[in-house]
């Protein structure tokens, strides 16, 4: 049985296989072509943390492939309110469906869920841990929009400490010989032990030093919900902002990505500039998740 818990569970070849498959599903995601390969299958969306786009894009992906979806959120699930363990919830739900998508506020929850599940489990984000499906759609977007994945110069901006999106993406980028610039307020820099483990071309930088060189500007939100101390959050909130003046310094074929939702780190005036690709990136979530669902369920 295949689970997708961490991007590290996939080889470079497996990643490329999913991206190629997503490419085949793009017209299905757009509603141009019909495809019913998951007809008769049921996906359980198990969300212990609020989510909009990840949940909806999984739901859309499943339905575009002819499957059905049941949504269970922590607020609705009476068993969870009654104190049922995650292990028991998974044992029960996995008997009702063909695959589980889980988002949880605790790190390692998806791996633990997989150990208790009778069906494949897909991690849709576990606390500040991993978010492999976001990484796959990020890689897909970069490959589509930059027309290559190898040897790109990529700046990661914002919350590098708590952002699971960043943690997953960095691991994947090391497979593609990227030059990675880490740009963040000091208290949100990438954890040291995380960096120690990676063999890659990393460099802490300031955006103005590298802006003319980079191919991809990947911006993240400072996540208020990950701060235990609100005072700490206030110190860094709004500490960086991508404005049209900043974007004008980028190469004309560079791209700006953001996992969304944004707060104020990208000025809405940037949305109309040619480098802005974050809404396209959000769309690519559907074909990529179609590829993942078909991979684990077929």
């Amino acid at each position, binding site marked *: 049985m295949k689970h997708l818990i961490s991007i590290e569970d996939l080889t470079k070849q497996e990643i490329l296989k999913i991206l190629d498959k997503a490419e085949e599903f793009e017209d299905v995601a757009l509603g141009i072509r019909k495809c019913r390969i998951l007809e008769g299958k049921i996906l359980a969306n198990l969300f212990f943390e609020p989510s909009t786009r990840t949940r909806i894009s999984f739901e859309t992906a499943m339905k575009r492939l002819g499957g059905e979806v049941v949504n269970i959120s922590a607020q609705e699930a009476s068993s969870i309110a009654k104190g049922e363990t995650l*292990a028991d919830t998974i044992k029960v739900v996995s008997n009702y469906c063909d695959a589980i998508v889980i988002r949880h506020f*605790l*790190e*390692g929850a998806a791996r633990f869920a997989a150990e208790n599940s009778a069906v494949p489990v897909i991690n849709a984000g576990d606390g500040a*841990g991993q978010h492999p499906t976001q990484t796959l759609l990020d890689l897909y977007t970069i490959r589509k929009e930059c027309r290559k994945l190898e040897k790109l110069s990529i700046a990661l901006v914002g919350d590098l400490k708590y952002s699971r999106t960043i943690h997953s993406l960095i691991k994947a980028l090391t497979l593609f010989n990227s030059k990675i610039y880490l740009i963040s307020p000091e208290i949100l820099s990438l954890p040291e032990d995380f960096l120690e483990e990676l063999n890659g071309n990393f460099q802490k930088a300031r955006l103005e030093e590298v802006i003319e060189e980079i191919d991809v500007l990947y911006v993240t939100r400072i996540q208020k919900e990950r701060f235990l101390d609100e005072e700490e959050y206030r110190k860094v909130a709004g500490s960086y902002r991508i404005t049209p003046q900043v974007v004008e310094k980028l190469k004309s074929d560079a791209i700006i990505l953001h996992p969304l939702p944004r707060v104020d780190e990208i000025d809405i005036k940037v949305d109309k500039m040619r480098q802005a690709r974050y809404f396209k990136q959000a769309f690519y979530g559907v074909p990529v998740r179609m590829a993942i669902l078909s991979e684990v369920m077929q």
Partner: protein
Amino acid sequence: MKERELVVSKIREGTVIDHIPAGKAFLVLKILRIDEKTKETVSMALNVPSKKMGKKDIVKVEGLFIKEDELNKIALIAPNATINMIKDYEIEKKFKVKLPEIVQGILRCPNKMCISNTKEPITSIFYIKAENGDVIAKCHYCGKKIKKIAEFLI
């Protein structure tokens, strides 16, 4: 051998753990789950002069042949420990502990947001490796690394 005989008497049958870094003997017992509730007689020598180590600790557990897998867990805090299995006052087997690749249920993850620190029916699992002479444990669930292993023994 004489050196040890001076500080702790010989045992007839059981396990002798030698070359424990000074001050770590109690942690060795903790790893082996030996405490006041277990029935074996345990004798310890602390701060024994040692040519190789300067000072060392020694633990003798009488009447118990501890399994090799269990003993290898000692390598987490005493990578150079040697084991002597004693029968009829003689050394029947002698070996050096080997760092296990994986340990279950003996370390606590320092990450408060790790699923392994909850009331779930879960046993902690850590992957062990030596890095630049240090022993590093990595949580199977959240990936958090532990460098000061002694602080996180359950």
